């Protein structure tokens, strides 16, 4: 294991190399290009023995991954924003056909107006695509979770496509120190797993058939159960990861949440900024803490409820708008809390859209603002923050 200075995009490319990916099918889009450029270079240099398909669109990028994954080989792509939107049609097919594609998404805002900068609008629109979805907060996590994604997706009990979300620019384009393991350590964690159903002339099978109303719902139930059950494997994979590399991941991670009456909930790279805000508020004696939602799908109901139910007030930051509705994460956590008898009030905020920064002070303001609203009994509607009036 060595510590190197590496852009997060390149850390992901490094994970792809160490995972010995067989097929990469990708299309360039900002802010994701650094990942696939680096992989293309690795292939060109012979450092990664993979077939790289330079497709003509993101729709074809994901379609190419489907074809390769159906052959039973390790498959990777990366995209962002509009690219994920163009792929959208293919995403639920990957999960329904149980094809374990791994994808890095450098989360980016959606047009219009055109914005190449970060927020979570792209992945929230793909929330229901049936993929395992997780969020990284820094370069190390981007690297680690990419390795874990292959281990999870290809597990015979899972066989589901898996997405690692990293914030566009705020994470994708930042160089920081990352621990890169040796090939032997990676091989130990990530052996080649058997694949039961693949396209092979020696054992012909039919994939992607047509179902009448008599069978469609059975197919969907089976798919939903598979995604829910994947959590067991995810927990196991993260445990194995800790065993080999010493770093621990959980579906819901907290920061100074013990005894907190107010909890802030964030996803992605802004979580580390939020930690700074929590430190400051704790120093001034406030009982505040942080929840970082690492696993977005399957939604970690148990873990989330266990942590969130202790607080009086939960402050949720969404980095996407569900126009005319609540923030997508906020509505989700509210639904998760609703059946509990003891549950916090929830204050929903939307911010950090299209690359707009949220500073430590911004998070402190958000928490104070939420408290004020709660005290005044005005928690009903979501508020978009940091907007110029």
């Amino acid at each position, binding site marked *: 294991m060595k510590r190197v200075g590496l852009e997060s995009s390149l850390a992901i490319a490094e994970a792809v190399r160490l995972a010995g990916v067989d097929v990469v099918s990708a299309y360039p889009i900002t802010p994701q290009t650094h990942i696939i450029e680096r992989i293309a270079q690795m292939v060109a240099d012979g450092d990664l023995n993979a077939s790289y398909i330079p497709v003509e*669109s993101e729709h074809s990028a994901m379609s190419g991954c*489907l*074809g390769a994954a159906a*052959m039973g080989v390790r498959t990777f792509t990366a995209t962002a924003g509009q690219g994920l939107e163009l792929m959208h049609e293919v995403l639920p097919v990957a999960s329904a056909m149980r094809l374990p594609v791994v994808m890095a998404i450098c989360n980016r805002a959606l047009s219009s107006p055109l914005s190449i900068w970060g927020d979570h609008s792209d992945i929230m629109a793909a929330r229901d695509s049936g993929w395992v979805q997780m969020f990284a907060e820094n370069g190390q996590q981007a690297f680690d979770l990419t390795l874990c994604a292959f281990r999870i997706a290809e597990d015979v009990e899972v066989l589901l496509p898996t997405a690692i979300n990293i914030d566009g620019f705020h994470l994708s384009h930042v160089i920081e120190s990352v621990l890169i393991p040796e090939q032997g350590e990676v091989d130990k964690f990530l052996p080649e797993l058997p694949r039961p159903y693949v*396209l092979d002339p020696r054992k012909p099978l039919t994939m992607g058939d047509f179902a009448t109303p008599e069978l469609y719902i059975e197919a969907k139930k089976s798919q939903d159960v598979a995604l829910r059950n994947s959590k067991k494997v995810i927990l196991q994979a993260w445990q194995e990861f800790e065993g080999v590399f010493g770093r621990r991941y959980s579906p819901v991670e907290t920061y100074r949440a013990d005894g907190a009456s107010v909890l802030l909930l964030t996803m992605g790279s802004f979580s580390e900024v939020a930690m700074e805000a929590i430190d400051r508020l704790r120093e001034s004696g406030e009982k505040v803490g942080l929840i970082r939602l690492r696993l977005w799908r399957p939604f970690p109901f148990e873990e989330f409820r266990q942590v969130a139910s202790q607080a009086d007030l939960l402050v949720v930051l969404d980095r996407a708008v569900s126009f005319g509705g609540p923030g997508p994460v906020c509505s989700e956590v509210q639904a998760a809390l609703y059946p509990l008898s003891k549950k916090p009030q929830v204050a929903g905020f939307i911010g950090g859209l299209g690359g707009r920064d949220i500073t430590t002070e911004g998070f402190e303001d958000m928490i104070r603002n939420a408290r004020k609203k709660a005290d005044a009994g005005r928690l009903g509607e979501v508020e978009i923050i940091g907007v110029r009036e």
Partner: protein
Amino acid sequence: METLALYVPRLLEKKENFAPGHRACSGCGEALAVRMVMKALGKNVIVVMATGCMEIISTQLPYTSWEVPWIHTLFENTAAVASGVVAGREALTRKGKASSRTKVVAMAGDGATADIGVQALSGALERGHDFTYICFDNEAYMNTGIQRSSATPFGAATTTQPVGKISMGQNTWKKDMPAIAVAHNIPYVATASPSYPFDLMNKVKKARDIEGPAYLHILSVCPTGWRTPSDLSVRIGRLAVETGVFPLYEVENGKYTLNIDPPQLRSVEDYLKLQGRFKHLTPEMIKEIQEKVEAKYAELVEKVLFYDGF
């Protein structure tokens, strides 16, 4: 004229790799073409299929008509999925886990090829993957109920370009997909028809054995959409060739060959008059079609002669 040997049973591969029990319409020219293609391909293939009639009629859960590995994902991405399957085969071959002789064959209708899937197809042909793409052209979106495509011929009535008080059906000329394939400078492009079975099967084998992309365009008579009696599917396919409406030719590394070259083309009317989709045509329109067919045919003959000159 292709001579049908008297001993067809001896020549024909017995094994049906496209199993009966499929739910194609009675007299389906496309199912017939698929059956012949599968006979020619043999077992060492992987089929990637677009959404469309052939997908719906052959893979209704829990049944499948396919005796070879088969995958369908979406409508417009067949060539892209095939690219991935080829890449996957390459990866497995590198590890000694698959044979490089396993051919990947993409199959799609005219809508999936000439309209919604043309981008993915162009990309895959340009990148030069080792695969065969077969377009089964029944000249409209038959699976959804006879809507026009860019491969629908001039004058044909469809449900989205119908004949009306002020309209006479399709008002554009059929998109020339084989020419678009040729423009990608791929090693092999050919047209075929199940009415000429051995020509068709020979072309399929040729495409299979060539390394790199090959494109086959097969005219598939659709009794339902063309409004023709189900027993005429083979006859109408033959008339398409005999009238010059659908010439059978090959383009090998840019070199054109006409495979069936009747001494004299029959009148297009012989072809048109059997089909309900053309029954509204005026003599002027038939004349216009005749002229266009002759001009296109002459263009093709010129290309053939040009290469013959070398």
